[in-house]
Each structure stands twice: as C-alpha cells, then as structure tokens.
C-alpha cells in the first residue's frame, strides 16, 4: 500500500493504482473535471496510463457556482 494526498487528505491505496481509478472513486462526473498531480495538470486522456506514486499530491477540481 502507498499513501497519496487527494485534495489535501491522506488516502491509502494499493501500489499501482491508476489515476483514472482514483478519480472514479471521488466523482461520478467526468465532464467538467480536471486533475493536477504535484502541481501539473494531467490531461484526461493520460489518467488511465498514470500510476500513482508514494506521496503524490493530487487535486481533483470541478466547476461550481462562483464569481
């Protein structure tokens, strides 16, 4: 198992867990969602080829009412 940080919260996941699987676990919506890992945007098309690394900081954002 490894520990990653999702939107600031520590989460334990199996080694080799893919970014796409992590996103699926956090939101049912795929449209209007974007992901950054360690401060860099990871395009949607690359999620399923992106295994998580120990200590990775993942931000999953979506559009909300505001401004």
């Amino acid at each position: 198992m490894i520990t990653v940080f999702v939107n600031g919260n520590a989460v334990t996941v199996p080694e080799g867990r893919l970014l796409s699987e992590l996103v699926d676990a956090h939101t049912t919506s795929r449209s209007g969602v974007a992901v950054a890992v360690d401060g860099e945007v990871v395009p949607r098309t690359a999620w399923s080829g992106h295994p998580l690394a120990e200590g990775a900081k993942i931000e999953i954002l979506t559009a909300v009412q505001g401004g």
Partner: protein
Amino acid sequence: MTETTATTQPLRIAERTFESRLIMGTGGAPSLEILREALTASGTRLTTVAMRRVATGTRGSILDLLTELKIEILPNTAGCLTAGDAVLTARLAREALGTSWVKLEVIADEHTLLPDPIELVDAARTLVDDGFTVLPYTNDDPVLARKLEDVGCAAVMPLGSPIGSGLGIRNPHNIELMVAAAGVPVILDAGIGSASDAALAMELGCAGVLLASAVTRAQRPALMAAAMRDAVAAGYASREAGRIPRRRFALASSPSRDESPLF
C-alpha cells in the same frame, strides 16, 4: 436601427463578440432554479464559474444549466492568493471546461478580497504566454491597468468597490482615466449594488459590467437581473448619445422673454 432605438452594439473582447454587455457571476444564488430565472432575465451571454475541489457526489449542474441556456462559460480563479495557484487553477479550468478564457483573480487576503497587484501581473503574463485569453479582476488603478494591458490581457476589469459590498463605484474618476487610456475593453467588475451603479459604469465609458451578488442576493433576483440588463443598455445609450456639459449656473430651456410678443 434608428437613432431613437437604444441599440447596444455587441461587446467585443479579443476575437469574440457578445450580444449582451452584462457579464454575470453565479455565486450567491440560493438555488439553481432562481439562478436560471436570473440569468435568463439578465440576457447575459457570458457567465463566470469557480473551480473547486470535488465533493463526493459532485455533479456538474451549473455547467448543465449554462449549456442549456447557451451561455458561454468564463472560469475564474477565485480564492487564489498567489500567481502560482491562479495559473494552476486556470490550467485546470482549461482542461475541465475546454476554454482558454479566464477571469483572473489573485486576491491579497480573504478579508478585503482586494487584488494583489504584483501577483496579478505575474500570473497574467504567464497565462498570456501560455495562450490564455486573460480578463483580470483588478484594482481601480489606471497604472496597474496599463501594466496588465502591456502584458497582453484582453480586457481589464476594475472593481468599483470590494466584492459583494454593494458600495457601487467609489472612484469614478479613476475608471474614466482607465477608459481613456485603455486599448482593450474596460469592464466594471465588483461592487455593483443597484441598477444606477451599472448605468454609471457604462456612462463612464466601460465596455461592460460584471456582477453577481447584486442580483443573486437581491430580494427578487430575476427582477434585479432585468433591471441590470436595462441599466447597462441605458447607460450605454446615454454614453453614446453624448451628455450635456455640467454648468455652474442655469441655462434656460425656454426662449428668453425679450423674444416673446406676449410680454
């Protein structure tokens, strides 16, 4: 189109045109249904959304609403305190929403929500270089506006007064100075409280008005949205019509008595 019709020319920003000069925000609405009524009544063609961490079960309902109403989405970087945060948020918005337009906000603190000018220019420069169309929320500072235009911003969006304050336009003279000097649209953003504030912004020469709280937190949001729509149109027409000069003393609008045969 006749002179007697208050025809508002489209708002032009970068290579795009918008049929309404009123840009709406979506924050503060008590429900999506009330927001739908307000956005419809406002006639807006461009509306902001914020980017936030997903909550479990988050659904893209605001996006669904804007798509249904055929309103263009303008993501903002609300809540960002540094240039780095704002740049990453803009890039995430581009990925999530498929638009390279961004309302750039870099605030100095949560208490005043005033823009941090140094971080703002830094972020604007980075985002312009990265291919974004940048619409910065800025202080009512003509010099800062010039710096933002210099780094390639597509518009400048000065506050009239602090976000959500409803205090109107506290320094109309600075807004006029910005309009006079700017080669890009000046859009009054933040502080609007009522329709007269929106009309004043347009009379000062602003190309448009961006507001949210004044409508979404009004007692009757849809009615206020309609008032804002009309105020922006009226202010625009008033500016275009060319107002009379202000005078120190009266100037009779009737003929003088000497010319009248009755006296």
